[in-house]
């Protein structure tokens, strides 16, 4: 089914002052569309994690929201640095967050596992020096 709604949110690396704004707008959009509470909650959790990942770990990127009658999709696409070992990155408790990020309460190593747990479908592609793309979909039915 064709995508009926697309919204793009540029996310800057290290921009903690605006971190979470894209998630807030996405949540508002989904509530206005009347997306049910259960899906909404899972999208909220995954969306915030992925947005913060862009801020903390990437060199910047874009968060995209797609909605069609079957599902909500979130795509996070960054311009590097890329993840050398995806399997390790997906392990609970593993984190490469900076001390700065840790003092803000991040870096528990639950980001990617949490995203995977909340999404209906989860895909991660990464190439060192090129960037990482995470695609998550949330089934509406």
């Amino acid at each position, binding site marked *: 089914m064709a995508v*009926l*709604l697309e*919204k793009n949110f540029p996310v800057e690396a290290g921009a903690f002052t605006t971190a*979470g704004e894209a*998630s*807030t707008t996405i*949540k508002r*959009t989904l*509530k*206005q*569309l*009347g997306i049910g*509470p*259960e899906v*909404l*909650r899972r999208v*909220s*959790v995954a*969306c*915030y994690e992925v947005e913060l990942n862009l801020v903390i770990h990437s060199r910047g990127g874009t968060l995209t929201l797609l*909605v069609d*009658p079957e599902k909500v999709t979130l795509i996070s696409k960054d311009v590097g640095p890329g993840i050398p070992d995806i399997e390790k990155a997906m392990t609970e408790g593993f984190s490469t967050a900076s001390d700065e990020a840790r003092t803000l*309460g991040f870096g528990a190593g639950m980001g990617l596992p*949490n995203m995977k747990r909340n999404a209906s479908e989860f895909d991660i592609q990464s190439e060192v020096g090129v960037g990482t793309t995470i695609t998550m979909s949330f089934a*509406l039915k």
Partner: protein
Amino acid sequence: MKEKRFHSVRLEGEKCRGCTNCLKRCPTEAIRVRGGRAHIIDERCIDCGECIRVCSYHAKVAVTDPLSSISQFKYKIALPAPSLYGQFSNLKSISQVLGGLKRMGFDEVYEVARGADVVSKAIQERLKDPKLPRPVISSACPAIVRLIQVRFPDLIDHIVDVRQPMEVAAMIARTEFARKYGVDPSEIGCFFISPCPAKVTAIRNPIGHTKSAVNGAISVLEIYGLLSSQLKNTPVDLTLEEASDLGVGWARSGGESMAVSPDNSMSVDGIENCIRVLEEIEDNRLKNLEFFEGAACTGGCVGGPLNFENNYVARSEIRKLTTRDAEPNLNVDAGMMTKYDLYMSGRILPNSAMKLDDDLMEAMRKMEKIEKLYNELPGFDCGSCGSPTCRTFAEDVVQGVATKMDCIHMMKDQLRVMAQQMVDLAKTTRE
């Protein structure tokens, strides 16, 4: 036809000048200025009373019951909110207020703070269940519960299903009075002395149960003058005050947390602050927090718009009054926990007033139109069009309740184009 919702918060049309004060402050974007005066969108209003506080012309009012309404009942019980105690300076004891209420025509006084004691215990019972999503959210402030229904429907499962202190107080007061004097419970009227319109609405439209045990709500402001004059002459009867310091502490922000879960809780006051924290709960950032207490009013219930005293003054008065117990302890008889319906009987449902359309496809089409129009708007959020922000204006236009030319900036541009067309036309016709 949808049933018209009851709201305590009302507008007195003739006093409204159509300014933007309330428009900009409403947390659920429930106000529009149309035809030179404000209108409240019933489905969205959560009766928090922010508009009453900010209106310079006193055009926003709270509908409460007059003191005279107690005469409908043969027996009358006053249920004073704990915040009432903070309205008087240098009170020697809470008993003065309780005795004063009796002199005003009530047969009995039952402290809502006692209800708070019982409710605190009931919430503690619920917190023992590890399956409840954390943080567990307080159900005490009806404006916050309704805010969650409208803006955070995905957090409804976090709200603890315990009834409000005023409900519990009314149930106990009625039962005990009926037994003590051998009278028919239906002849007893329980009247809440309320600091806010949200509670008044909660009596008419209870959340999570069908019928309120409270028969009416009288505002603190309504009785303030009369009660003040009673304080001096009232002989102090210390047996009247039974609630614990913890129960009375519910009057101010942080009091409930202290009574329920002092080790791991967060108390937030002011509705905008609550919204910020609820966003974080939604993002799962506070999953290690046990209990969240949100109060729509600054300072908690002492900051309610129907109080007389400044909330900071009232807060410190409450602090002075809650130093009676050496060890903080809830005053709850074991029997109360099983005898009364302390828990809600129904589910709290989401309020879909923010939804653009019931049909997802149609909602998405509308969303697209809103985006397109929003990008044409100046983004000043000036409110001159009568909608609180440029975004809500775009929504209103797409929903058919406003027209593009309601935006004075778009209108100005349009006039400029038209003026130019007139000049061009004049030039061409002259030749």
